[in-house]
Every structure is written in structure tokens, then in C-alpha cells.
């Protein structure tokens, strides 16, 4: 029930209206503070998923807008960061489904080379691009964000079994893409 309609209880009018006005302002402040302080982390995570700064910006923009809309839910979550990771991942996966995304995907590989990349970073990033988006998201959430299989399943809106299979396939795709260069390093990873 919307707070504004619910709150107009006889005899308690000023209190409920005051609470509404104060709460709105307070939440907004909290949200702004949170997003400002987490912007580098959000940008890095989005970049890892998208492998392109422009698209990472788009994904972050979508995610923080969604976060504003659902800030009441986010602030009540046990782990706000985990909630935000989920919002961001879903923004990434939704963006990948759009027509625009499919159109520009052809250019991904060339655009992914950044001037400041180290050889390893470049190799990993190019290999990541060869991993399908859902598998890439599973890898990033499981291994970069250290999320559990259960939490990853929630973020990806799938079962734990699907997370395991997506992770396994993702690792295989990553190994293939990196060739001999990372075989040893990835051998110890699950999957």
C-alpha cells in the first residue's frame, strides 16, 4: 500500500506527513553517499563484465537508476553490496539482450584493446570476450566477487545447478580462448 495513502490516519496527520517528508530526504542522502563512495568499484565490476568503458558506463547508469528506485529495499538488505552487484549484473545481462547491444557486439574485440593494458590483462580481457555473457557473469560473480553459488543463482535468476554448469562452461571457454598461456593457472580453478 503506498505510504502516502496509508499514512493519513485520523489524529496522526502531522506526524505521518512529517515522517514522509523527512524519510524521502534522508534516503536520498544515503543513496548519494553510497553511490559516490562505491563508484570506482561499480565501474570496475561493470568493465569486467562489459569489457568496454562506454558500455560499462551505460550499465552503471542503468544500475544506479534502478538502485535509486529500489533504495528502500537495498538499504534493508543484509548485504547492500551484494544487492548492488545483483542489480548491476542484471543491468548488464538486460543490456546484452537489447538490439543495440547485438548490433555493436561485432566491434567488441577491436574496441577492447586499451592503451594501458598489460600483456596478461589484454590476454585475459580478450579471452573473457570469447566467453558468452551469462557464463562471463557467472565467472565474475563467483571468482572476482567471491559470491557463493546460491547468491550467484539469485543474481542470475537461475538455479544453483545452472550456476555450476555456466561456471564450468565459462571456465572451459576461457581456457580455450587463452590457449596454453593460462592452462596452468586455470587448472586449479573449479570446473
Amino acid at each position, binding site marked *: 500500500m503506498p505510504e502516502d495513502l496509508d499514512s493519513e490516519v485520523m489524529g496522526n496527520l502531522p506526524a505521518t506527513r512529517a515522517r514522509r517528508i523527512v524519510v524521502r530526504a534522508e534516503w536520498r542522502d544515503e543513496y548519494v553517499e553510497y553511490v559516490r563512495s562505491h563508484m570506482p568499484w561499480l565501474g570496475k565490476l561493470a568493465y569486467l563484465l562489459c569489457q568496454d568503458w562506454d558500455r560499462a558506463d551505460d550499465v*552503471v547508469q542503468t544500475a544506479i537508476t*534502478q538502485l535509486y528506485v529500489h533504495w528502500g529495499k537495498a538499504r534493508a538488505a543484509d548485504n547492500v553490496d551484494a544487492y548492488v552487484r545483483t542489480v548491476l549484473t542484471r543491468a548488464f545481462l538486460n543490456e546484452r539482450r537489447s538490439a543495440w547491444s547485438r548490433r555493436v557486439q561485432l566491434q567488441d574485440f577491436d574496441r577492447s584493446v586499451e592503451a594501458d593494458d598489460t600483456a596478461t590483462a589484454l590476454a585475459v580481457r580478450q579471452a573473457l570476450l570469447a566467453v558468452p555473457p551469462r557464463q562471463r557473469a557467472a565467472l565474475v560473480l563467483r571468482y572476482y566477487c567471491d559470491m557463493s553459488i546460491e547468491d550467484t543463482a539469485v543474481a542470475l535468476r537461475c538455479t544453483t545447478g545452472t550456476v555450476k554448469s555456466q561456471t564450468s562452461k565459462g571456465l572451459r571457454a576461457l581456457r580455450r580462448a587463452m590457449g596454453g598461456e593460462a592452462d596452468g593457472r586455470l587448472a586449479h580453478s573449479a570446473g
Partner: protein
Amino acid sequence: MDDLRILLDEAASTPARRSAVDLDLAVRTGERMIRRRRLGWIMGAAAGVVLGVAAVAVSGLPNGLPQPAISRGTTPPETPVFFQPDEKQASFGWLPAEPAERVVQTHRDWHRQWITNGSWQVELRMVPSGKDIELNGNDELFSVAPEQIDRTKLERADVALGREASWNTARRGPRGAALRWKYTPTAWVEVAVGNADSPEEMARHIATTLQIGPQKVKLPIRMTQTPSAPEGFDLTESRDKWLATLWYQDSVRVLVSSVKQSMTIGSGDPQTTVDGKEASRTESTLIVLEPSGAEVFVYRPGRDTIEMYRWLRIER
């Protein structure tokens, strides 16, 4: 696992470019989405639920009440394109009893009054020219574009109000009714009643005695300086308590409650004093407890809240 983590760290280690992410844009877009969502929720709700919650109807109309002399109110000489932020736009004429609680709100593109005697409730909603009033009884977000109105929910009303009048069936119920009409050729007003024995009769009486026209409102607070362009006010009076809010551009606002509301703000310095008074502060909010027992809340993002607090005068 650690090895993959290291590889991913390396992949993410490319120095970030200057980000084009716009936090203000996210807030603005988010606000719009919330408004649309709330409006959608309300519009999607069953009329019975809306009527039950928003309470449109009246019980105080005695049977056999003589018809009041019909006054068409004082129509403003010109149709307003926006409301002045320190004026109310209408005054009630006939009411079944003296109200115990009332809310008066004016913003640039909407005006609302809500009154009750503890049993019946009456709501007045007005918009300036070029806007229309949403159908379901939203209390603040009702000023909408005319094309957003589903006119099939409007039923022609045979009421002598001088101009086209309609019953808003979205707010109709066993004890509720809403009557809307054009108070100028291009601007709408709606009177809704709730919890009434004869809701349509009650709405008709209130509508025909309503005095329409701008009138300055004497608020219990004023500012000696304004932080930005004024956007509107909100005055709530409930028996011996009152709550007044002045709204300015950029979400800036000052709210004063005549009694302590024990307002809290999340982070910041909860225990401080301002001019010797108990206060709490964050970067953009300030709450001050007055010696009279009144509580002041100031919201001014990115600017000096204490300065704005010092512009405030409480006059009641």
C-alpha cells in the same frame, strides 16, 4: 580459484577512464520512475480499494437538507497557467460540520485541500490550465497531461456548475463520490467526499458553494530570505497540532512541526547544538529542537543548512 581471481583482477586493472556516469541524472530518472510506478499502482488498484483508502464520502449530510443557495463561486478573471506558491485556490462554503483536521497544499501545478471531522472526509484537487486531474485519488501526483485521462471513467453530471461537469466513477463507492468540473474554460477542479451516507448529494452541495479564486495563506512560518525559487507550501492542522513545509527549487525544503516528532536522520552528527538548541546534522539535513517543543527540519543539499535555519521565523 585464487589464480582465476588474480587473472580477473588483472583484467579489471586497466586504469579507469573518466566516467560518464551521471549520479544526478540517475536520481532524476529514478524520481520519475518512482512517480510513474506509484501512479501506476494507484491506477491499477481496484476502485473499491482506492475508495476505501482514499476515503471519498461523507456521513454528515442530514436527510431532507434544504438545497443551499447555489453560488458558482468567484471564478478567477484569468485561467492560471501555474499557481502562486503562497496562495490557496479555493475556499469551502457549505460543509456539514466544522472540520477537525485539514491539509492545504499548493505547488506550482497543483492545489489540494483535505478536511475531515473525524468521520467524513472531503478532498479538493485543482490544476491550472493545460493540466488534468488523475482519476484515482493520488494525493500529490495528480496533475497530469490531459491525454493521460481515461475519459470513459467520467460520467456526465447534471449539476449547475456553469461549465461541463462529470462524476469521476473511478472514485465512486457506496460511501464515496467525486465530482469534477472546469472552473475556467481550460482548468479543472474536483471535489471528492468519503465515508458519507449520501456521497453524491454531499459532493454536489460542496461543489456548488465552493468559492474559487486565489487567496494568500497565512502560514505559521516564514523565511526572511529564500534559498531558491519557492515551489509551494504544505500546511497540515490537526486539532492543536500543525505542520508546515515550505518547498523550494532543487528539493530544498524546511519543515516545522509544532510538536516534537522525534525526527531522526541516518548518518552524521546526531548530537550537536545550533544556537544553543539541541540539533542533529548530516551534510544536507539539519534537525533542531526548539525550546517551545517545535521541531525544525531543513533539507538543503550541498549548501549551508544552518544558514537556512537562521532565515526561518516561527510565528505561531
